[in-house]
């Protein structure tokens, strides 16, 4: 009954608005240093041919600048209950991979041996096979909602979804030339080196969970994955969402629900107390040493969905960074001064009046999409229309 819990957090917002007297302000309580570095294990054992990825990291202190501290150099081994032993390959940055076909008909455990000598072992994990699912979207009140739809069964009632988003965006102006300061010439840029078109990425940050048992015939209909707000650049050209669906057992569901609650529901008047989040990985010698994370196993399903701008039209996009973009003209005499310093980049020649009097110019911010974090390299998975 997520709806109950989620909505309770609105009480306080409602209350504050009602009286307009309360307030919420940033606050940094003094917290005695938490010395222990807790191991964080994240991943999924993919059986039946998929790629297994496990990430190891450590906690960092609450106010530290470090976003994450990956733990590399560990030895990770997946052990079959009946047969088989599969060491994972360390890819650096705390990432460990395995792309071998693990049989579906047995349970697995994961053992972790860190460089500092500590050993951890997971409980036995039984693989669960995810049913098929699909994703859909609707446009409502100017926003686009993306949903997942699936159908559970008796043994597969708890679902977790994660998604990755990819979308294209364009700069308002295109720089076709480079100014060569040494020669004073304009050099045409190769088609593939143009920087006006980028792909950008994001991923799910909320924990998206649902239990099919509360619905008729175990059918989950239109569970919201995300809402794309109106004016978002994501639907400006073409957008792709790639979703992976996992089936969880009850214990894993409780773990994820705890993570979700501890992130989404905390702090309002009627919000629940923080949950102690359990793990199925334990220190080999001392069970009191805490570990964060829960490893599940099975076969996940994936789905992708493309949305073109014209499918949701009218869709207006506003990219704040591009609001002030104007086109200037630079006379030939000023090339060195304007283009040489990097203040301006040339767009194309201004030949409205013959002979050509100079170059149209703009700034890198308005011509190089990579500045906003995107990449000009088309991802391998990207399918054009």
């Amino acid at each position, binding site marked *: 009954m997520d*709806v109950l819990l989620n909505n*309770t957090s609105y009480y306080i917002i409602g*209350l504050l608005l009602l009286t307009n*007297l309360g307030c919420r*302000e*940033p*606050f940094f309580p003094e917290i005695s240093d938490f010395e222990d570095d807790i191991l964080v294990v994240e991943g999924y054992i993919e059986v039946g041919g998929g790629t297994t990825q496990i990430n190891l990291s450590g906690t960092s*202190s609450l106010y530290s600048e470090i976003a994450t501290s990956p733990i590399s150099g560990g030895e990770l081994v997946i052990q079959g209950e009946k047969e088989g032993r599969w060491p994972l390959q360390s890819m650096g940055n705390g990432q460990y991979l395995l792309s071998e076909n693990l049989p579906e008909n047995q349970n697995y455990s994961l053992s972790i041996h860190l460089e500092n000598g500590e050993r951890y072992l997971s409980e036995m994990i039984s693989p669960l096979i995810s049913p098929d699912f699909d994703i859909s979207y609707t446009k409502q009140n100017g926003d686009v909602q993306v949903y997942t739809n699936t159908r559970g069964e008796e043994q597969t009632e708890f679902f977790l979804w994660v998604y990755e988003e990819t979308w294209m965006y364009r700069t308002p102006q295109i720089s076709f030339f480079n100014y060569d300061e040494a020669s004073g010439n304009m050099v045409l840029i190769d088609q593939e080196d143009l920087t006006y078109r980028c792909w950008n990425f994001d991923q799910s*940050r909320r924990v998206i969970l649902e239990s099919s048992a509360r619905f008729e015939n175990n059918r989950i209909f239109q569970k919201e994955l995300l809402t794309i707000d109106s004016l978002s650049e994501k639907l400006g050209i073409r957008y792709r969402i790639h979703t992976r669906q996992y089936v969880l057992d009850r214990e894993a569901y409780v773990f994820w629900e705890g993570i979700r609650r501890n*992130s989404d529901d905390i702090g309002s008047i009627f919000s629940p107390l923080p949950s102690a989040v359990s793990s199925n990985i334990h220190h080999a010698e001392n069970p009191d040493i805490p570990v964060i994370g829960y490893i599940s196993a099975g076969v996940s399903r994936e789905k992708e969905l493309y949305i073109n701008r014209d499918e949701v039209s009218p869709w207006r996009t506003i990219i704040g960074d591009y609001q002030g973009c104007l086109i200037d003209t630079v006379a030939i005499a000023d090339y060195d001064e304007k283009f040489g310093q990097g203040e301006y980049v040339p767009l194309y020649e201004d030949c409205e009046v013959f002979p050509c009097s100079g170059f149209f110019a703009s700034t890198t911010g308005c011509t190089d999409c990579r500045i906003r974090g995107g990449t000009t390299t088309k991802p391998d998975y990207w399918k054009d229309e």
Partner: protein
Amino acid sequence: MNKGKMSKKVLSVVFLCLVASSLSIAQTTEKERISGIFAGLEFERFAEMVENKTSYRFFFNTEDVNGIVVNVNAYDSPIEDLLGEILKPEAIFFTIDPEQRIFLSKQKRLEIGLPADFFQIQQDAVQPNEIEASPAENANQDFAKNRLWVVGQSNANSSKPNASLKGIVQSVESGEPIIGALVYTSGQYARSITDESGQYEITLPKGRHTLIFQNFGAYQEQRQINLLGDGQLDVAMDDNIISLSAVTVTSEKSANIERPEMGLASITVQSLKKLPSVLGEVDVLRAVLTLPGVKTVGEASAGFNVRGGAADQNLILYNEATIYNPTHLFGMFSAFNPDMIEGVDLYKAGIPVQFGGRLSSVLDVKSKFGNKEKIQGGGGIGLMTSRLYLEGPLSENSTFALGGRGTYSNWLFGFLDEASGFSDSRASFHDLNMNFRHAPDPNNEITLSAYWSQDAFRFDKDTLYDYHNLNLNVGWTHFFNDKLEGHFHLGHDQYGFGILSQPDSLNAFHFGFSMDQSSWKNHFTFDLNEKHQLSFGMNHIFYNLNPGKQIPRGQESIVLDERVNREKALESAFYIGDEFELDPKLLINYGLRYVVYNYLGPNTINQYPNQTIRTDDTKTGEISYGAGEIIQTYQGPEVRISARYAIDNFTSIKAGFNTMRQHLHMLTNTAAIAPTDTWKLSDPYLRPQRGNQFALGYFKNFKNNTIETSAEIYYRKMKNLVDFRSGATLILNNELEQDVLNTRGQAYGIELMAKKNEGKLNGWISYTYSRSLLGTNPNEWGERVNSGKWYPSNFDQPHDIMMAGNFEFTKRINTSINANYSTGRPITYPVAKFNYNGSERVYYSDRNAYRIPDYFRVDLSFNIEGNHKIRKLAHASWSLGIYNLLGRANPYSIYFSPENGTIQGYKLSIFARPIPFITYNFKF
């Protein structure tokens, strides 16, 4: 008879006994004050001058005062002060009796006891006007006060030294009985308190007495009586319309010394109205929070915690009906209409034997049933709410009271910006009271009481919340004879909430929770003899709970129709208690309550092996029970003992021990009471909560009971408290036993209080040190919170200081100021962060390992009464003030949430600014 000679002899005897009580009596009467310069006068001359100016009369031996030269300047001084100054150096004692007679004596050693033949002598000696007691005389109160009332027949029961005096105390204005007035005499320990019909009964030695009737927080009335035998004396006294002697929240005056109960706090409506309020609404629950030992987790939460107990451990009664959600509008207002309330009692310890079913406290709110004189009404208009009430006689024998309240807060939402996303929000509430009383004859009284309250609110168009209380009950009080009184009660209480969610036609559903309880009580009091007063009876409550049902809404909805099995149970309690007065000093109130609880079918109970964790995997099957079948029985005795030992008239020691059982549990994993919390009955897995409490107190009054001080310590132990596994789902859960963690609790503390009841400046200050700890039961198979160690509960706030002051500028304008400091409540903080599932997450400390910053708040309010001309269309008053005068942003909560992928801490305050309020009240 040689009066002059005789009087001296008698007076010395009178003196003996009166000195002991002079402190208590002299100052409570209307006092005359003296002004003037008395320079170089002989004492006799001084006495003459005082007698000329005042009604005081002096009695002394001329030899005693020979040679005393008076040299005092007086300005509006009490006579005691002057006499003290003059006579103390001369080693002369004085005493003033209620009739303003001042007696001087050189004797030093004073005995408190009375000579056996004292009354005889006095009766012979003093012969004031004797008048047969007749009710008509009550009309002239001053006259009545100074007459000698002869009660009883002198020849009847002449062998007995004592006689019993009975009567009814009622209000001069309304004719309604005055409840809880203390009746006592000077020099005697005998006391009586008027009951609900204003009746008192007191046993006194035959002879002359000054009988004092003290209405708490109001006027005092007195009668000179000559008690010849058993008889009756009715008294009419001023009620407290506008408190001429102001009393704020009060543990009963003098009764705090006399009564055996500890931890009882009573609040009068007058005092309630003087407390600064939020948004101008007088609020019972907020008043309760000003009492020592009562805490809350935050400003907008209506649940309160008494002596380290959870919010669901308070029995909240409104005219004997159980109220499950005592709040409106997210806890901002309490559900009780202040116009309809007659009085509030909170029992923190020493809970009377007729109450049970909750571990921590009983909050007994009594409402009006209307006066007998004339139709009256009133109401109030505030910024967000308005109320109206009407009361009066229906016929000669019956009265009624009606009240209603509503809000118009919806218009506020209209101002909200559409972009805020809350312009679709709505919130409203209303409540209605209807009370009716019929007394066909003096021995019977029938009451009918109905109460309805409802709240509805939404934050977007999709989801509508509502909850309601509905209570109906009928009571019959019957006086079988002089000694036996019976009260019978039949009632039905209902509480429920619903959520209507329709985001789209496929996911639309309605969720509902409701509980119904029907109760039958009979309660008897029986005056066995002078020393024993018995009370006995039984309570039966039949619970019928719908723990939750989710129903799809509309044809298209694919939401499942899901219902948790209904729960039924019968709770029966049989009790007997005795108030036993061993001697005037030692009073013991002891009782036994035997509770039988049956959890009834139809229901289906999951089965698990013993001695193991209960999960879906360990479930071995289920057993179905038919309708009315007993699934599980819990039974056991509850013990209630409290005793008072009076060291003297102004000092007493009390001790108490009680045990309690609770079969009804609120399922919550939030800190505050949420409108979506459900209740659950004890079942084979959820054992009844049990608790006991030891308490010890020392009570001392100073300055003739105008200053009361008390110190109480307590220790409580609780077991079978309900906590939940992490991630437990509390609603629509048919396997709740899998998620419950059996928890034990302990609480202890000391409560210190000093209170000044009278004078222009009155009020109190209290300090409480208390702890409240919880720990998962070591036998629990599942998760153990904080590895099974003791940890502070959500409402463990060790230091608490409360100050409330009231100052009367004039009779019509008074101001009150409140200040409250307490340690911040415990909270679970994040102590580390980590990355998981694409976002930064936090790792939490042990439960409640940290505290939010301390709490401090000051409120100010003014009450301005209109003039009180009798002939006036309506009496009006204004109440205005400022809540949170200092504007301190007291944090309600601290929380952390990922903002754009990084952790940000926030402090949330509910009332972060000074909040002015104004309410217009009227009476007609």
